[in-house]
C-alpha cells in the first residue's frame, strides 16, 4: 500500500502543485506556513476538493485522475482524516461519534461501542463518553475527533494538526500514544503539524510546503540540519543566512563576511545553532573573524536560558544561559559583541 499524488489545483489565491509519494514504511510530516496549502493538499487526497490536473493513486489504484475522468468519492478511498477543527457530530455523544466510522462500515453495534470505548480511554477521555460535543472543551473535542479517525484503521491516515488544541501535559502523552500508533500502523500516514517537536516525534520524513509548492523534502534530520528557507530555519530554531561563497569565506550581507570550515563556491546557505553564539561585553580577542557588535532587539527568558534576537550588520538569534544574561547585564536595546566559531557554521550550496 502506498500513496502517489500529483496534485494540481487552484482555489482562490492558492495555486497548489504538490507531488508526493509516500509508502507505508514510515509516517511523513508536512509543515509549512499558514495558508501554504497543507490542508488543501490533504483535502485533495481525501477527495474533498477536486484536482484540476494530476493524479492520486492509493496502493496502485487510481482514485482520481481528471484526464481519465476518474474520481472516487471520499468514502470509496478508504482513508481517514483528522481535520483541523474537531467537526464532531453535534447530535451524537462522544462515544457515538467515535463509533460512527465503524457503524458506517457495518461493524455491529456492540463491537463498535466496545472499540470506541477503548479508544476514548486511549485518548484519555473515558469520562466524556456520554457527553455531547457542545459539552466538551476545545481540547477534549479534538481528542475525540482523533479517536474517531484512528478507530477505523484506514489504509491512509491524514492528520491535520492533531495535537494543536491539546494541552501541554496531555500533549506529551498523546504524542507518545500517537507515535506508537503511527509507528505500528500498517498504512500511509501523513501528519500536518506546526510543531517541530511533534514532527520529530511522529515522523522520519519531513515535507515542507510553502506557497503551494514543496520546498524541502527529506529525512527529518537532514531537513532540520540544512534548512533551505527562512521559514524552515525559523521552525527548527536555526539561524540561516544566504550568501556567496569563495572558499571558506562567505559574503552574507553588504558589510558582512563570515568564515566557515568547509570551502565552497557560489550561492550557499549558512546555518548555525543559536547556542553556538557566544556573547561578550567587549570585543573578544584572538583570531575569531566571525565577530560583530549587535543590538539586542528582543530578549526572551525561557527557563534556565534566554533567547536573544540581535541585529546589526547581520541578524541572528542567540541562546545563552540565564546566568550569562545577568552577568553581561543584557537588556532590550543594549549592544553586545557576538561571535560564532567557524566550525559551528554549516555551509551548503543553495
Amino acid at each position, binding site marked *: 500500500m502506498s500513496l502517489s499524488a500529483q496534485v494540481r489545483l487552484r482555489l482562490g489565491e492558492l495555486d497548489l502543485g504538490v507531488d508526493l509519494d509516500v509508502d507505508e514504511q514510515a509516517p511523513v510530516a508536512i509543515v509549512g506556513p499558514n495558508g501554504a496549502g497543507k490542508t488543501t493538499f490533504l483535502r485533495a487526497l481525501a477527495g474533498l476538493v477536486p484536482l484540476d490536473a494530476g493524479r492520486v493513486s492509493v496502493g496502485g489504484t487510481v482514485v482520481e485522475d481528471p484526464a481519465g475522468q476518474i474520481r472516487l468519492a471520499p468514502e470509496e478511498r478508504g*482513508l481517514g482524516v483528522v481535520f483541523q477543527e474537531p*467537526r464532531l457530530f453535534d447530535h451524537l455523544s462522544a462515544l457515538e461519534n467515535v463509533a460512527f466510522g465503524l457503524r458506517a462500515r457495518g461493524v455491529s453495534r456492540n463491537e463498535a461501542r466496545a472499540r470506541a470505548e477503548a479508544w476514548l480511554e486511549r485518548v484519555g477521555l473515558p469520562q466524556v463518553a456520554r457527553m455531547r460535543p457542545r459539552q466538551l472543551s476545545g481540547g477534549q473535542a479534538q481528542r475525540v475527533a482523533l479517536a474517531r479517525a484512528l478507530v477505523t484503521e484506514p489504509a491512509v491516515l491524514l492528520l491535520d494538526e492533531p495535537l494543536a488544541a491539546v494541552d501541554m501535559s496531555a500533549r506529551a502523552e498523546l504524542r507518545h500514544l500517537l507515535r506508537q500508533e503511527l509507528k505500528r500502523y500498517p498504512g500511509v500516514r501523513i501528519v500536518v503539524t506546526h510543531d517541530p517537536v511533534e514532527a520529530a516525534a511522529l515522523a522520519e520524513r519531513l515535507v515542507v510546503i510553502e506557497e503551494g509548492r514543496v520546498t524541502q523534502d527529506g529525512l527529518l534530520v537532514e531537513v532540520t540540519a540544512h534548512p533551505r528557507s527562512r521559514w524552515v530555519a525559523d521552525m527548527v530554531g536555526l539561524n540561516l543566512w544566504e550568501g556567496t561563497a569563495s572558499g571558506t569565506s562567505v559574503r552574507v550581507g553588504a558589510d558582512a563576511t563570515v568564515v566557515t570550515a568547509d570551502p565552497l563556491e557560489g550561492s550557499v546557505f549558512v546555518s548555525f545553532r543559536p547556542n553556538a553564539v557566544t556573547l561578550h561585553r567587549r570585543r573578544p580577542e584572538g583570531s575569531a573573524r566571525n565577530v560583530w557588535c549587535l543590538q539586542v532587539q528582543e530578549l526572551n527568558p525561557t527557563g534556565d536560558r534566554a533567547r536573544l534576537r540581535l541585529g546589526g550588520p547581520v541578524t541572528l538569534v542567540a541562546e545563552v544561559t540565564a546566568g550569562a544574561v545577568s552577568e553581561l547585564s543584557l537588556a532590550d536595546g543594549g549592544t553586545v559583541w557576538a561571535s560564532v566559531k567557524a566550525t559551528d557554521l554549516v555551509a551548503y550550496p543553495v
Partner: protein
Amino acid sequence: MAFAAGAVVMIVLPLIGLLQRVSWSTLLSDLSAHDAFVALRLSLEVSLGALAIALVFGLPLAWILARHRFPGRALLRGLVTLPMVLPPVVGGIALLYAFGRRGLAGQVIYDLTGWRFVFNTSGAMLAAAFVSMPFLIVTAEASFRSMDRRGEEAAATLGASPAYRFRRVTLPAVAPALAAGAALSWARALGEFGATITFAGNLPGSTQTTPLLIYLDIESGHEATALALSLVLLLVSLGVLVGLRDRWLGNP
C-alpha cells in the same frame, strides 16, 4: 416586542372571535348530529397521508434541488412552489387534467390498472399532497442548502455512504427546519379544501374531509355547526402541533 404583539393580535384575535360565536350549549349535539367524527378521522388520515407523500417524494427532490447542479434547476425550483399560488379550484381542475380518468397520467393509470383517484380517498390525499408538498420542499431545500457541510465531509472520510450520511448526519442536522416544514405541510394539508372538492369530490367517509363539511355547513346556513367543527379542527391541530413539535425540535 410591540410588533410581535401585533402579530399575535392579528392571528389570535380572529380565533377569539370564532370562540365567541361558537354556541357552546349546542356544541356537542351540533357535532354528533352529523358526520363530524367521520370527517375528522378522514381529515387526519388524508393529511397524514399527504405528509407521508410529501416526505417520501418531496424530500429527495428538495435534496436534489439543494445539492445538485443541472440545467433548469432554477426553473424547477420555481415550478415546485406554484401549487401554493394557484387558486385552489384551479388546482383541482389542473389535477383533473393530470390525474383524472381522462387526464394525462390518470388515463394511463386507469387503462393499466383500473385505478382512479377521483371520488376516492387516495384522490383526496393526492390533492392535499399537491397543495402541501411545496411547503415541505421549500423549507427542506433551504435547510439542506444552508447547513454546514463540514459534518458531511467528516462522515464521508469515515467511510459513510451517501445514504448513511444522509440518514445519520444530514437529517439530524436539519431536523428543526424539517420539523417546521413538516408542520407547515401537514397543517396546510389538514386545511386543504378547494383542490379536494374539485378533484376528489365530497362523499362522507371517503373524500369529505372536515373543511368540506365545514364549508357545506356554512353554505347551508348551519353556521353554528361550522364554527363548532372548525373549533374541533383547530384543537386537533393545536394538540398535534404543540404536543409533537416541542418534543421533536428539542427545547433550546
